[in-house]
């Protein structure tokens, strides 16, 4: 049996194509059923996210299955969009080791648009769980998917691919954390109604901060406050609002700075020089850089935030190299385990067949000899079984030795052909990693990862949650 993959992703298809070829959540089940009607396909899992549609199948003939699934998808997509998109050139396919390698990379978020983003692992698990529920995942996919989850968890734990935030809003949270150890009870003032500031405020509020909004246009402030579920502070009372705030996120469309050294010196005097974090996401800037000289003022503008985000992304890429090495290592181990796993049933079948023959022939000999006492019968049977066992010794050793090598499958096929063995009963899918205990552990791990990084990819998560299933 071979693992095959056919799909398209953000690497091969632009958003304009992906959004038209999306497999919506309600369409996955019919697609799985349709795939199983293909004679070449014995198992199937469909992963559908905003960045990829991938079909993993198990088949006795990988090349034939790939071709059949590719035709099926092309036909489906052509029907969906009228054939004008040239779907064929956006599709890719992998068979055997490369398919497993791709699955491991996708699950570990190494193939994601933002390397290290935490959603993909959950999305792949959901896809696999659906296939299990529908009975479209069998022994082969049930072998590879749980191992992919394990590798992904190991990579998240042992490398830093998810350690540093990469979006501007989560970097803002991370920087505010350099001044305030926690945001519980801290007051955040949102000045203006920009999208980025909105995201940063949401991230801070998620960590327990209280948010207030102020804007030159009161209606927009009220609209944003209603959306965020927070209070409105009149723009005319900006100085008072600044005095009460611990963190200010500002993104107005003003042409000139609205917060300068004179205003902030007064504010700091009222605040008794208590630290005040100013996150200025506006262009042109809302806060005059001259305020940096004031005691207790910590100001970061969009350039600072983007600089940190870019460095974090670079760090993630470096960590991704370590993660790639881990994927290779785990994949080799996994493939070796798969080959060893296939040997057991073959050896059992081999022994059953030849010991059976030995016993039958011994029985015949005993009947032909006639009048054998019980002791002689036992000796005859023991001799027959011993001869069979001795003859089986060499092939058994060869199969076991060869199980870890690349020739394992050929060896098994040869054994089945030479010794005329029956087809081995398929094993049940390996669900050890898909149980509730592990899921809970994973959720805890993902939550800890994002919270310990100051929201890490929290806004990415929010955006991704919205779009995760289209």
């Amino acid at each position, binding site marked *: 049996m071979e693992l095959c993959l056919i799909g398209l992703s953000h690497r091969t298809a632009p958003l304009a194509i992906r959004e038209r070829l999306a497999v919506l959540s309600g369409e996955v089940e019919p697609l799985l059923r349709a795939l199983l009607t293909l004679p070449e396909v014995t198992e199937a899992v469909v992963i559908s996210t905003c960045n990829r549609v991938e079909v993993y199948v198990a088949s006795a003939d990988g090349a034939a299955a790939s071709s059949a699934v590719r035709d099926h998808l092309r036909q489906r997509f052509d029907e969906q969009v009228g054939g004008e998109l040239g779907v064929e050139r956006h599709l890719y396919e992998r068979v055997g080791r490369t398919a497993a390698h791709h699955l491991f990379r996708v699950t570990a978020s190494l193939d994601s648009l933002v390397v290290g983003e935490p959603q993909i692992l959950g999305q792949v698990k959901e896809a696999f769980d659906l296939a299990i529920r529908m009975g479209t995942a069998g022994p082969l996919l049930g072998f590879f998917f749980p191992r992919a989850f394990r590798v992904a968890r190991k990579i998240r734990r042992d490398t830093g691919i998810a350690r540093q935030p990469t979006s501007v809003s989560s970097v803002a949270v991370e920087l505010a954390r*350099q001044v305030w150890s926690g945001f519980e009870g801290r007051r955040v003032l949102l000045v203006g109604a920009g999208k980025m500031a909105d995201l940063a405020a949401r991230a801070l509020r998620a960590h327990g901060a209280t948010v207030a909004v102020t804007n030159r246009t009161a209606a927009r402030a009220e609209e944003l406050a209603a959306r965020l579920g927070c209070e409105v502070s009149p723009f005319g009372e900006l100085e008072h609002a600044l005095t009460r705030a611990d963190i200010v996120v500002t993104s107005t469309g003003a042409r000139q700075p609205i917060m300068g050294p004179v205003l902030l010196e007064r504010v700091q005097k009222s605040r*008794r020089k208590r630290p005040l974090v100013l996150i200025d996401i506006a262009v042109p800037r809302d806060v005059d850089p001259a305020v940096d000289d004031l005691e207790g003022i910590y100001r970061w503008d969009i350039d600072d935030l983007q600089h940190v985000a870019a460095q974090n992304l670079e760090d993630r890429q470096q960590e991704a190299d370590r993660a790639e090495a881990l994927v290779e290592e785990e994949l080799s181990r996994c493939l070796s385990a798969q080959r060893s796993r296939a040997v057991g049933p073959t050896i059992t079948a081999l022994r059953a067949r030849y010991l059976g023959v030995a016993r039958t022939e011994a029985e015949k000999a005993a009947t032909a000899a006639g009048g054998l006492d019980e002791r002689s019968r036992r000796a005859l049977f023991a001799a027959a079984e011993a001869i069979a066992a001795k003859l089986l010794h060499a092939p058994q050793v060869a199969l076991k030795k060869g199980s870890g090598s690349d020739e394992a499958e050929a060896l098994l096929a040869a054994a089945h052909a030479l010794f005329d063995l029956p087809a081995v009963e398929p094993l049940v899918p390996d669900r050890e990693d898909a149980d509730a205990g592990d899921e809970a552990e994973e959720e805890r791990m993902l939550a800890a990862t994002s919270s310990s990084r100051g929201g890490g990819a929290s806004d990415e998560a929010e955006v991704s949650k919205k779009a995760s299933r289209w």
Partner: protein
Amino acid sequence: MDALTVIVVSSYALASVLYFAYHAAPGAALARTARLLLALGFVVQIVDIALHCLRGAHPASSGAEALVFIAWLMAGGYLIATVRYRLEAGGAFAVPAALVLLLLARVVPAASGPGSPAAIGTLGLVHVFLAMLGVALFALAAVIEGLYLVQERRLKRKELGRLRAGGGVPLDLLDRLAARCVSVGFPVFTLAIVTGTVWIARLGVLRGGGMVRPEYVLAVASWVAFGVLLVARAGAGWQGRRAAWLTVGGVFGVLLAALGYVIRTVA
């Protein structure tokens, strides 16, 4: 130096090097190894102190032994703080400070301090132990405030690379911890000054010695500085840079006073 002291000095020295390296380029493995070395030195040092006590060289017996004990208290205090609050970046201040005190104590000639507990008397013992505890708490506060000043400067200069690498400790946490050390250390040091005053007054009466020595003046001046700091923190909301500099100044005075005491006991 005996074998145990060599182990302690080596552990603290290696931990200091690793903490300096961590300060320059933060890394989890560095911090972990440094903490293990510090813990090893801390444990071996208490064994060393206990053995010295058995030989009659208890912490109150001489200025040198007092310094050793203060170094141990500082190392322990920092160890607790770093485990509880992840203050790895402060190791580059605290551990070398403990090491310097330890080396000072071990390189000065054998002490000619007050002598056995019986010779010092209960009041003297209480005074010495309270003073040591107070000095250690103030020194810990100074270490934390030193870290505050470094972190604050990095934030102001936007040295975001280092902060990003995990070397940063939130300013409010540092400020809170330093304030806590001072607020516990102050009453302890106050009691040390009171008991010390009574003790030397008695000694002065008994032996005809003088009451006013430079180290006493320094100790009282530092005590006043810490008192002002506490009042300013509570009343005028002092915090941040000003509080940090005042703490560092106060500790400088206290350490000078302790050093004066050590020099006098040797002389």
